[in-house]
């Protein structure tokens, strides 16, 4: 047992207990935190580990939610088909988009990721027959896994434990991913792309692959979110969602896995607390961005870790 697995165990145990004792409303918030946690980790693969600043990550979140909802409602597909198909749609969209995006210079990435997600958003708004337009698509039933997970997902608590299991699996997979040779290569690309190429790395292939992996996990979060609410609307594709998930990892910490999860937790709490006092949520997001940009670009957690590591190694 190393330290990381002990912390992970404690984290899961606390979450499991909270899920049992909290009110359904609070359990719902907790579910949101876990879902946004997956979403934020997926973006951090791009931004924090590879140095690709995406401002359109909601594209994959919303796209796979929409795909699963449309396949369920319009074609009558079951969960076992619709859910994987939704993820596939997000991954394929990421692949096609990055065939284009990776041709352009670094400066363009921020702009064309935003453009990409806004284009999808506008399609969701205007293709009313397929997407329900502004009203979105209500009425996708939560899945029932019968034999595999023998409890009902219809209750908030039941669904929470399903999300918790998915979260643990996703977090473990991502943990291995960032610790793998591939993950090391991503950090190398973030720090110095030219050196990586001189060392013999095919940088394009790494970026292309990580974009698809990231889209997969963003899509996973998007589907869970859609099932949580049994509803999806164009706002899931909006730049506000992209900006919020970016904020989670900036507030949490860039280039870690736990930081974005922490950021997701802080974000959901903040949104909850502030919504009882003010409806000027955009203003708050804006202020946080300005504050982060001016004062704490690496995120509080990242700065602390950085310092600790330096201190440890400075000792003889």
């Amino acid at each position: 047992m190393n330290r990381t697995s002990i912390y992970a165990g404690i984290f899961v145990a606390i979450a499991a207990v909270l899920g049992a004792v909290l009110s359904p409303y609070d359990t719902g918030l907790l579910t949101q935190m876990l879902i946004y946690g997956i979403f934020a980790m997926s973006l951090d693969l791009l931004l924090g580990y590879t140095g690709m600043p995406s401002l359109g990550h909601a594209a994959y979140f919303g796209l796979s939610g929409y795909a699963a909802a449309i396949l369920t409602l319009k074609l009558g597909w079951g969960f076992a088909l619709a859910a994987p198909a939704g993820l596939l749609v997000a991954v394929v969209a990421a692949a096609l988009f990055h065939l284009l995006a990776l041709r352009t210079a670094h400066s363009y990435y921020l702009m064309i990721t935003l453009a990409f997600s806004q284009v999808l958003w506008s399609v969701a708004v205007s293709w009313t027959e397929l997407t329900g337009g502004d009203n979105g698509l209500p009425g996708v039933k939560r899945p029932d896994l019968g034999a595999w997970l023998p409890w009902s997902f219809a209750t908030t608590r039941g669904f929470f434990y399903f999300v918790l299991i998915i979260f643990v699996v996703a977090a473990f997979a991502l943990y291995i991913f960032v610790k793998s040779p591939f993950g090391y290569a991503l950090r190398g690309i973030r720090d110095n792309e030219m050196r990586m190429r001189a060392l013999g790395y095919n940088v394009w292939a790494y970026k292309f692959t990580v974009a698809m992996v990231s889209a997969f996990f963003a899509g996973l979060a998007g589907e869970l979110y859609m099932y949580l609410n049994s509803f999806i609307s164009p706002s899931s594709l909006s730049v506000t969602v992209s900006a919020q998930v970016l904020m989670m990892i900036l507030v949490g910490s860039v280039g870690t896995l736990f930081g974005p999860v922490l950021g997701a937790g802080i974000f959901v709490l903040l949104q909850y607390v502030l919504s009882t006092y003010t409806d000027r949520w955009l203003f708050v997001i804006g202020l946080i961005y300005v504050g982060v940009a001016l004062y704490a670009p690496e995120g509080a957690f990242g700065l602390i870790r950085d310092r600790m590591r330096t201190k440890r190694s400075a000792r003889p």
Partner: protein
Amino acid sequence: MNEMGVNPLVVSHLSRNFGGVRAIDDVSLELKPGERRAIIGTNGAGKTTLFNVVNGQIPPSSGEIHIFGQNATKRPLHARAALGLGRTFQITSLFRSLTVIDNMIIAVQALHPCHFVFWRRAQRYRDVTARAEALLEKWNLADRRNELVKNLSYGTQRQLEIVMALAGEPRLLLLDEPMAGLSAAETHLATDIIVNLDRDITVLLIEHDLAAAFSIADSITAMDQGRIVAEGTPDEIRKESSLQKIYARGGATNS
């Protein structure tokens, strides 16, 4: 090396234009196995452009490059490493936010079959870690193992720059001004590293510090205005009168 007779690097009639300017003009070079060749010349002589074309960072306008007998002219930069080509950069080019050992692991695994594996932890590949550790040990960097690269002194960074290029076991090594910005003592250390490199490794280096270049290289190529103007042993080059003129025109270059 068992490929006796195959020259590590053959450059033939290489040119590169930038807009209307010929940065290198009909350059031909041949390196013998194990040779240490230094390229000297004033600023703007085309040394770095030649390096970048050989390395694959920029394509040539015309001409060909053969590395160990293989035509590498059209190969992308990253594919040239697989032919046995390694290089260092004039401006220190490291992974600044990572530790020394992580820098080495990234360098070592580049040509290891595991480099694209994302379903197992890197630690599991003990041969990679062991080789990274061994290289640090060999080049006296083992005690800096866990330090972040950005906290290292400039001299140590330059040292790591070279050691990282050795990680992929290159048989042809391009060194772009390895002594740039080093103190006299550090220059000494770096010269030692290069002189003590395995004789299997063929070295092509750019060096501004003529004294260092003459002490390392067994042959010298002098460039001016994108062309090769002289080639020979250090002794022959010292006597070459045309070079005196070039250096007099270009001003002192021993920076």
